[in-house]
């Protein structure tokens, strides 16, 4: 069978087959125990829980593709939501308020600025991106607390209440229900996936990112715009984090400081599970999506099974390792089969 496609190209597309297999296996297992798992509602819940993680992970994928890392995404996720809330609703430590749309624009502009600063310290100052973005993480978390004065914001119960059209516009961002009860947030996930898939696999930008990440020296010799691309990717990463923060705020209906939890960690994990190398140059967006699915499904499935939260951790650890192991093994098998079939054709 394998012989029929034969070429390396087709085999490359099977890169993350093992991971896909692991996901199917886990799904089948959970489904056999709890029929509700693949119910329409629960699949929606599952997808919904992937939105912020997915948006952030896709962008992080590009950062990691370059061989860099962005630790500030979780903090920027929180900062953008807090900025939107305080600018729009007041009640924080800012001396003025804005209507919703300018507030959103401000929050996104701050994210762009954060991306530029991350880029500056990585590209121009020559710091490891780990340090540059670690600094940004702390600054953004501090700002979050400073700006919000550590209070919680709930648009629908704010005093004074924002205009109704603003409330419903804001609700539409992430919380509104589309036909069949699909939360609008899910559209963002779909859009982000398509956007990043195209960026990665069908644009010159994505193509060169792979080259830069694979061999930065050669990229410099080939005069690829390494510095510019790094800036763009850091900005993209910050903006996606900010967007995710804002739509999560819309969906949850309220926001407080330091709410990003383990988002940063999960996003990097999803990227690595999806076959990327932290040294750069390797991995696809589909792989990252599979990583996101694996993590989200594990949480969902274990919650459904009602496993205690302590055992959940152990499960998550073991299954993550097992899934990536399966992937590694299947890749080896596929490569071997490919080499054999290549021999046969030559």
């Amino acid at each position, binding site marked *: 069978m394998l012989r029929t496609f034969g070429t390396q190209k087709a085999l490359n597309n099977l890169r993350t087959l093992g991971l896909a297999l692991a996901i199917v296996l886990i799904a089948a297992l959970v489904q056999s125990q*709890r029929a*509700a*798992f693949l*119910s329409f*509602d*629960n699949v929606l*819940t*599952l997808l*919904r*829980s992937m939105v*912020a*993680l997915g948006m952030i992970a896709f962008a992080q994928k590009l950062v990691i593709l370059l061989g860099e890392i962005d630790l500030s995404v979780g903090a920027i996720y929180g900062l953008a939501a807090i900025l939107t809330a305080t600018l729009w609703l007041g009640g924080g430590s800012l001396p003025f308020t804005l209507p919703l749309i300018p507030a959103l624009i401000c929050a996104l502009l701050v994210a762009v600025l954060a991306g530029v600063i991350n880029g500056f310290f990585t590209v121009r100052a020559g710091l490891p991106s780990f340090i540059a973005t670690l600094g940004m993480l702390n600054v953004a978390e501090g700002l979050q*607390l400073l700006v919000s*004065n*550590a*209070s*919680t914001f*709930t648009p*629908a*119960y704010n005093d004074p209440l924002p205009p109704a059209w603003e409330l419903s516009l804001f609700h539409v961002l992430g*919380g509104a229900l589309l036909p069949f009860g699909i939360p609008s947030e899910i559209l963002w996930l779909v859009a982000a996936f398509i956007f990043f898939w195209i960026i990665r696999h069908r644009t010159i930008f994505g193509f060169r990112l792979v080259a830069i990440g694979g061999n930065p020296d050669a990229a410099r010799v080939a005069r690829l715009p390494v510095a510019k691309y790094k800036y763009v990717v850091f900005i993209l990463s910050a903006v996606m984090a900010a967007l995710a923060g804002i739509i*999560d705020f819309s*969906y*949850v*209906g*309220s926001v*407080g*400081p*330091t*709410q990003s*939890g*383990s*988002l940063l960690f999960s996003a990097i994990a999803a990227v690595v599970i999806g076959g990327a190398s932290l040294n750069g140059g390797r991995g696809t967006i589909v792989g990252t999506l599979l990583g996101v699915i694996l993590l*989200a499904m594990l*949480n*969902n499935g274990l*919650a*459904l099974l*009602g496993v*205690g*939260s*302590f055992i*959940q*951790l152990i499960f998550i650890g073991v299954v993550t390792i097992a899934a990536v192991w399966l992937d590694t093994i299947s890749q080896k098998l596929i490569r071997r089969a490919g080499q054999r079939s290549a021999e046969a054709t030559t």
Partner: protein
Amino acid sequence: EEKTVPDKVQSREFPWGTFKLAPRIIEKLKAGEKPNVVVDIEGTGIPIQGAEMRIGMQRGCDNAAAAGMPVNCRITGPVNPNTSQQLAELETLLNSAQVDCLAIQPPLPNQFINIINKYVDAGIPVYTLNIDAANAKRFAFYALNEVNAGEINGEATAELIKKNGVQVNEIAMGSGAPDQPWAQARMEGFITGYKKVFPDAKFFNDAKSGIPTGKNFTTQEVLNSVTPFLTANPQITLFFHTDQGVEGVGNVIRNLNLTGKVYTSGFNVSGPILDAIDGGTTLVTIDQGFDYQAQAPVEQCAKFLATGETPDDPLQHLRPIVITKAGGENQIDTQEGRERLKRAK
């Protein structure tokens, strides 16, 4: 043979509207099956809180069974506070119809309004504990009144200071989470309570700017931050700590040989905290009774599903358990505190 389910259980009026119990739960009650009560808390692995809430849930469950209203009980929630994970889990549980009554501690006040309303709209009773979502359609809220508890602590501390004739120059306040509303409420209350006795007391910081002593609520972190702080600010002779970090503050006072000169008060109990009270470095601690906070809504869930009774006042404040060396009116002494601790294990 079918059991009867009282009308009060099936449908009930609240200030926010009518609650209708989900038909599947009615079927279940009719069939005499035990309903599922789920306690979903912000962090199951948080020291002291996580363990005590689990114990309280179990006690509530046992009490309900003893009262002839048996229920299945389960505790869920992320190990650490994690909004999106907790939310996703709640949605999953709702989808799979695994919950017949929910006791929930949201991560922040008034967070999770939407999901709580979704539960109630799906015909599932919801009670909040420890942290409230007052704008949601929850049935009632079980917790300490944080401001009040802080006030009681402040007053009790001040009384002891007065009684012992201690000279207090300046008071500092710290917290593992100085940004959190509950911590700020306790500090606010502490100031009020303390000033009832010493109206001119001087505070180093206000309720909004508590000294941070480490995000993870571990004693190590408290040691690393409070030691230099007290070294640098010798005028501070009383340190109020909003949570179990008071254990670390007691350690610091002992390590710096400041026993008898500097004092601390705080919240929560542990062996070292009680010992520090006996040793004189710590004046007052408040056992929040996390166990009671989890126990009460479980018992209430069972009671509602059996009889349809639920408190009219949604704010069900539990009485803070004040622990001092000698005990006293509305207080318990360290010996009794130890007994409670042992029972909790």
